[in-house]
């Protein structure tokens, strides 16, 4: 039976596609969801406009403390008038270009390292030279730079220093611990398990206390460690235990066949690890390692408690000044934004990496 049939394409029902379809399916599908959407929109309407007014419209951006107290909205002047101290601490005012330059070098290195195609030997050397240069810039004493004692270091450079050196030094230590924990030698294995479980079981603050109060007792008379170094050691010891667990996960994920193949070629333990196992295992655990870096970055804020002038403590010092007292909200929000930007870009990067790696390069 033949019919003159028009093969005109049928369109999906109007409530399925386009804006209407999206709104119906994502906001109002079902009674429960519809109620939720309405309640949420109402709450947003109650909260967001007043917040916006407080933060942007009624706020003072660059005034004195007194004028700020009269403003109805947020006082962002506490940041804009004090940012040099908040960011650089007690570092001599005229020399502050040096920590600034050091931070720029760090960001430059980080930015360059984002592209995995750059991960070659020269980059490792660049990092070593970079870190060395940063330390030199901060400390001074040669090349015509005036010497600045570490007691005067503070603010953002201190936070970044503690985090970066912390993770850099903790990484090899963590790898050794992980290998030790998986070793067949019972003595070594026991020692590593003891260390890892002990460190992971206690809060970082107890280690910081230990480092600032107990470490000096461990040293012979006359030898002193400066405070920053003590805190740095505590952070390194702490982070290494967590990195050890992360690396252990990667080692466990390697199939036995890899170890067996390396052995059958005749590689000894050291070569097997260096050439076959570790390159693969460490690559597998890059995402959790970046996550550990993010944690270390956040954890540096704890040095506030042992009175090191990281960016949190410098902020609190500003707030204890009578002129700026009472504006904690604004100051803390600013610091929170800084931390958030740092951590968010790192976790974003980690997610991107994870996707790349799971697709198989």
């Amino acid at each position: 039976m033949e019919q003159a049939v028009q093969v005109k394409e049928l369109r999906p029902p109007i409530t399925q596609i386009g804006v209407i379809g999206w709104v119906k399916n994502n906001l109002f599908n079902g009674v429960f969801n519809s109620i939720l959407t309405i309640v949420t929109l109402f709450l947003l309407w109650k909260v967001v406009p007043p917040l916006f007014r407080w933060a942007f419209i009624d706020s003072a951006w660059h005034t004195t403390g007194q004028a700020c107290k009269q403003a109805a909205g947020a006082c962002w002047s506490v940041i804009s008038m004090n940012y040099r101290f908040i960011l650089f601490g007690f570092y001599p005012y005229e020399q502050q270009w040096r920590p600034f330059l050091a931070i720029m070098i760090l960001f430059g290195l980080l930015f360059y390292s984002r592209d995995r195609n750059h991960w070659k030997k020269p980059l490792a050397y660049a990092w070593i030279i970079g870190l060395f240069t940063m330390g030199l810039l901060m400390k001074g004493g040669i090349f015509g730079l005036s010497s600045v004692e570490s007691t005067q270091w503070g603010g953002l450079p201190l936070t970044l220093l503690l985090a970066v050196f912390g993770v850099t030094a903790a990484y090899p230590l963590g790898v050794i611990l992980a290998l030790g924990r998986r070793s067949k030698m019972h003595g070594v294995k026991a020692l590593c398990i003891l260390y890892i479980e002990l460190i992971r079981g206690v809060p970082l603050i107890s280690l910081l206390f230990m480092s600032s109060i107990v470490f000096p007792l461990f040293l012979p008379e006359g030898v002193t460690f400066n405070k920053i170094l003590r805190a740095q050691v505590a952070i390194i010891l702490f982070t290494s235990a967590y990195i050890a667990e992360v690396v252990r996960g990667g080692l466990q994920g390697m199939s036995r066949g890899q170890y067996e193949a390396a052995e059958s070629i005749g590689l000894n333990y050291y070569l097997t690890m260096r050439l076959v196992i570790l390159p693969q295992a460490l690559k597998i655990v890059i995402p959790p390692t970046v996550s550990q870096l993010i944690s270390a970055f956040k954890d540096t804020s704890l040095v506030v408690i042992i009175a090191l002038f990281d960016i949190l403590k410098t902020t609190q010092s500003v707030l204890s000044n009578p002129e700026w007292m009472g504006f904690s909200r604004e100051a803390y929000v600013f610091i929170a934004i800084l931390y958030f930007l740092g951590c968010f870009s790192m976790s974003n990067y980690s997610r991107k990496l994870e996707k790349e790696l799971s697709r198989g390069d």
Partner: protein
Amino acid sequence: MFLHVQLQPEIGKGIVKGGLNEMNIEKKASEGQMIEFIDVHKWFGEFHVLQGINLSVDKQERIVICGPSGSGKSTLIRCINRLEEHQRGRIVVDGIELINNIKNIEKIRAEVGMVFQHFNLFPHLTIVQNLALGPIWVRKVPKKEAEETAMYYLEKVHIAEQACKYPGQLSGGQQQRVAIARSLCMNPKVMLFDEPTSALDPEMIKEVLDVMIELAQEGMTMIVVTHEMGFARSVAHKVLFMDFGKIVEGNTPEEFFKNPQHERTKLFLSQILH
């Protein structure tokens, strides 16, 4: 905008089709037919995945659907037990119409059994518990009776000795046979198979196909999406070829493989029969 109906020539045993205009769409669907698709359309967003499907399956009839990936064959059978929702047209299963009525859907699901490509056994339950789950919680059968039914069907698929094991301890072929037994425990009137052997190693395909052939010989109504043409030849009443959301042609197995009518069918067959 006028509605125009796609014309689908369907050749088959005693099925009257072709040239439907809007008035004839109101035909009754109860002449010993198990499943009826009447001008069914489905879209995923803008993608028109089912374009006017008209299909009729009698009781005890066995149909094999084949076609390239993306042709809509899985979507078609998933519409039968409402795992996918169609947007136009009607689907009627054993006299019950498939609409947005929960009671209808539940009744239909109790009568339609489905076997998945990836088995989907519940890994935290033993084999027997997997099979007894439906009878206990849906048909409200006492536990002893449910377990007896389970053991009966496990015997049928020749895997009774694994009753107390967990799915993770079984091979792929064994798991798929258990999956078939799990569906049978609900006493379905129709069994749907969505590429049941595609995820199996070659040496395990035969054990699953043998079970399906036994099932066929007992008179179960079956709709099977598969590439296993040997199975189609030996057991199917009709083989349908789907492409781009339409049923392009359908015929008895001998006619289908010997005289494919459309170019697309010929192309597809040349690719899978080698």
